[in-house]
């Protein structure tokens, strides 16, 4: 299990593995936003939490279709399926590796982008907290989407169509935390709900993902 995690991480970090791609996408999307919205700083303050959350979500989505695709092409996914490690654990480790290589860098980059978007000081803590707690759910749910579409040609577009509606609750709660943090109102309640969502998704989604993988490997 640990070996698989280390293997996935090193594959991602190696050149062409896609590590940093999501991060770069996140940077570009957020930097482009003011060009679309206008340079008015008070407007940017209002939309900053939402932009950062949407950016994080899209960046997560971008790297999802690579999650199983490489292992599927070279046959190592079948090896993993026949190994003593249950597929549920494989899916869980994949989700964790995905989060470590995309979710975590996004959390680290968010404060810098918060400055660019004129996020008020009291909002930073809640933005980071919401991203740190919410992005694991994005990875867990995304694993399921990636497992559903693993064998398909041109699965990428379909993947976003399947996964984005599932991201709705996470996005709602996450952006709500960040927005309330900026306003200075009670942000703890949505944060707790977001944490519950992440826990539930991380616990349940590997099973759904494993079920989908079994069908695709049949």
């Amino acid at each position: 299990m640990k070996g698989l995690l280390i293997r996935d991480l090193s594959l991602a970090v190696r050149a062409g593995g896609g590590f940093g791609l999501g991060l770069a996408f996140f940077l570009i999307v957020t930097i482009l936003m003011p060009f679309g919205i206008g340079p008015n700083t008070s407007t940017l303050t209002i939309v900053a939490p939402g932009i950062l959350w949407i950016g994080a979500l899209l960046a997560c989505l971008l790297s999802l279709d690579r999650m199983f695709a490489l292992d599927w092409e070279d046959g190592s996914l079948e090896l993993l399926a026949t190994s003593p490690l249950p597929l549920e654990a494989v899916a869980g480790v994949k989700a964790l590796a995905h989060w470590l290589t995309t979710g975590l860098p996004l959390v680290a980059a968010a404060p810098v982008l918060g400055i660019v978007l004129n996020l008020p000081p009291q909002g930073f803590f809640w933005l980071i907290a919401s991203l740190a707690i919410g992005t694991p759910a994005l990875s867990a749910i995304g694993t399921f989407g990636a497992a559903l579409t693993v064998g398909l040609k041109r699965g990428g577009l379909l993947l976003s169509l399947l996964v984005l509606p599932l991201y709705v609750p996470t996005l709602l709660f996450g952006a709500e935390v960040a927005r309330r943090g900026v306003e200075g109102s009670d942000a703890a309640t949505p944060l707790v709900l977001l944490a519950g969502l992440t826990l539930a998704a991380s616990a349940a989604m590997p099973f759904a993902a494993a079920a989908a993988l079994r069908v695709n490997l049949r």
Partner: protein
Amino acid sequence: MPKLRAMSLWEYANPRKFMATSAALLPWVIALSAICLGTGLIWGFFFTPDERLQGASVKIFYIHVPTAMMAINAWAMMLVTSLIWLIRRHHVSALAAKAAAPVGLVFTAIALITGALWGQPTWGTWWEWDPRLTSFLILFLFYLGYIALWEAVENPDSAADLTSVLCLVGSVFAIVSRYALLFWNQGLHQGWSISATDGEAPVADVYWYPAMISIAGFVLLFVALVLFRTRTEIRARRLKALITRERMA
């Protein structure tokens, strides 16, 4: 007890049996549905008085409410048939779910469009990010994803399995989204308009009877469409099997 077994519901899971029964049933369902829809909608459109506050716009009620109900019920039916497929592996069940999805999609679209048209003169806006409206929009996206996944997967059994799992997971997320949306924004949409609260009927009798008839009509229309489309799907499956066999020979 052969007689009792013959009456079991699972008999209809046999495609041949399903084809025979649905062929006998279909004309009746279609006729009944046409009668109910015709009666309910014509009664509602021509022979009901204007409502005190909303004027003639209440006439949209006879389309908006039944289609909205069926949009949700269609997904519920897909959930049940998906579960039956996953547990008991009855092909008809999986194909019925496939057949129902576009019907649910169209009903959702009608509920959304009529809702927007109704909202414009009464609320003063086409669209409001209200929890109820937004959940229907999300339901629409779920239908799209479900149909797209059916189309994308080559192997019919794999497609049935994957869409069934998606339907299960999607149902859970649809319910979570519903509550998340309530938390996110309090709504403009009135509560569930059919069930009576505090012993007082929210809808007066003059509107109630045509509404009930048109709801029955839409339910029957859904049943008719699903039966009809499931028959097509069963034939399409058989066609696919024949063509595969031809290629191999």
